[in-house]
């Protein structure tokens, strides 16, 4: 029954992401398999195999992450968690409000599963690079028929400095967990901070925090997490993680200490390692260079051509035959700075878009290259 509910939850997530893909949003996914040394509350320390899948959806005004994690600790003991996190913001470069929703299902062999759903409204100030947010939220956590209310207040800040990203947060939580966790309601304050460094194919992150519990438990406790990933191929990364987390009374996950290594596979090439098709020699490339206030040089590099023509808004949409020196075909014209649409024709063939320019579809059959003239 528990597995069935987890399966249903995961199916709903995949369904929602397929819907996202069908409306043209950007979707990114990864699959992770690995091994770890794991110590969980009420479970003897041991080795485990783990697997996970993550799907991210990025839209104009929101993003969504769905994840599925599972580990096999002994022959008869499994744990699994499925979670969806989504946020929606105002449509502006500096949105001032944000709505967050989260749903999670955690299950492990011989224990009651926990399902939670939460929502939060937040006020933001700043931009994607630096800013702060304050919000309040609430929800419910269900464990074995026991329904506990959840209330939260949270504030966080973020700052990007070159390749370094810093985050800090302060949150207050009050919940009524089932008796197996705590005999009465729990309230606590979490203070955390993190740093992430990303350069080319390497990403390193360190984060940690402290919990100040006001009732039903030790007064203070802390957690730490370190992770590093190295993309050794365009679609594969080696990932190492280690850390200690505290009991999440809302989502039902126990206190855990672990060290693990895994391989992450992604269908999309990593941006720093992807291999580009050999466009340099075989396909025409267009470059524009401003010579002075009036004159702009337009150069098209295409090997072994007998004629090259350009047609653009700056030619009044009239074909202009270019002069050449070797593989470089050139014309000089007075062109205003800014966006221009351009199309080229090689050896009297079809009009095409230069391979190195973004393209704009003018109709179902016709596209133009978008070139920025400096």
């Amino acid at each position, binding site marked *: 029954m528990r597995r069935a509910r987890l399966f249903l939850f995961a199916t709903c997530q995949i369904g929602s992401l397929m819907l996202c893909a069908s409306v043209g949003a950007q979707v990114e996914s990864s699959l992770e398999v690995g091994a770890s040394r794991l110590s969980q509350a009420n479970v003897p320390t041991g080795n485990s195999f783990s697997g996970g899948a993550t799907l991210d959806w990025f839209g104009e005004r929101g993003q969504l992450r769905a994840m599925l994690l599972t580990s096999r600790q002994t022959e008869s003991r499994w744990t699994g968690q499925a979670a969806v996190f989504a946020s929606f913001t105002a449509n*502006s470069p500096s949105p001032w409000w944000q709505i967050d929703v989260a749903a999670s299902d955690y299950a492990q062999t011989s224990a009651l599963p926990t399902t939670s759903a939460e929502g939060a409204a937040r006020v933001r100030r700043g931009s994607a690079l630096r800013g702060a947010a304050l919000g309040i939220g609430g929800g419910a956590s269900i464990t074995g028929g026991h329904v506990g209310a959840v209330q939260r207040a949270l504030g966080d800040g973020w700052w990007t400095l070159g390749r370094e990203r810093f985050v800090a947060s302060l949150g207050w939580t009050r919940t009524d967990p089932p008796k197996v966790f705590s005999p009465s309601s729990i309230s606590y304050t979490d203070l955390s901070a993190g740093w992430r460094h990303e350069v080319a194919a390497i990403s390193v992150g360190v984060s940690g925090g402290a919990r100040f519990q006001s009732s039903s438990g030790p007064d203070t406790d802390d957690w730490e997490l370190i992770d590093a990933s190295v993309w050794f191929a365009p679609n594969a990364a080696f990932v190492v993680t280690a850390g200690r987390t505290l009991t999440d009374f809302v989502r039902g996950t126990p206190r855990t200490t672990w060290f693990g290594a895994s391989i992450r596979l992604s269908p*999309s090439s990593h*941006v720093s390692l992807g291999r580009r098709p050999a466009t340099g020699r075989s396909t025409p490339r267009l470059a524009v260079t401003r010579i002075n206030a009036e004159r702009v040089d337009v150069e098209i590099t295409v090997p072994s051509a007998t004629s090259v023509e350009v047609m653009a808004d700056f030619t009044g949409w009239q074909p202009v035959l270019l002069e050449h020196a070797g593989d470089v075909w050139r014309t000089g014209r007075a062109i205003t700075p800014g*966006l221009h649409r351009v199309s080229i024709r090689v050896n009297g063939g079809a009009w095409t878009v230069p391979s*190195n320019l973004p393209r704009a579809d003018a109709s179902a059959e016709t596209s133009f290259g*978008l070139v920025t*003239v*400096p």
Partner: protein
Amino acid sequence: MGDSATRRLGDSAYQAVCFGVAALIVAVHSATAQDSLRFTGPDAETSRQVAQVVQAAAAAGLPASQIVAKANLAVLVRAPGPKIVETARAVAARLEIARSSIKPHELANDIVNAEEALSYDAPPEILHQISLASPKAPIAVPLSVLAQLLAIRVPAPRAGQIVLDLVRRQATGTQMQALGNDVDADVRLLGVRALAAVNFRYGKLIPTLAPLPPSSSATDAGLIQSTSPGTKKP
């Protein structure tokens, strides 16, 4: 005829020639301006309706040549007459929004590029912020790169934020130009998500740019709130 009379006649002839040349320049300029507003559609009715839109825009002080340019593009791709008229009206409406969004910038080329960005669904607030971030220098190139990033499907808030930061960090036109082309290459040739590509390319560019002015993040939110609510799409 004495020397002085000859000199006076020479001066008069010189003045007449100068006047003639000036008149010729004005006439040629006027004719060129008229040419840039001349549109010939696939049929008389389309030509008449587009000409009305162009005349109204020119009378309102908008760079009406942009309407003609886009109408000509529609003709080039063999769009039907009603579609060409619709395109002309949409461009005229966007030019009006563009002009009010980028005040105090009044250069026709800036307004034209703001219209291009709006045509890719750039929010007018972003244009307003870019305009205020560079109140004296032309903003055609940043607006052009914004249009490129939106064409590549970088989400508008992130595209706007990056272009705004590029302006504030005094990126050169060539650097902005390269950013748009590189992001496109990452997306199209590598299959990388547009957001990841623009973040990566912008991250690589940051070390070569000037630091952000300290007040920039505070003004981001303030500008949003102070943006005129009257600039809506028709």
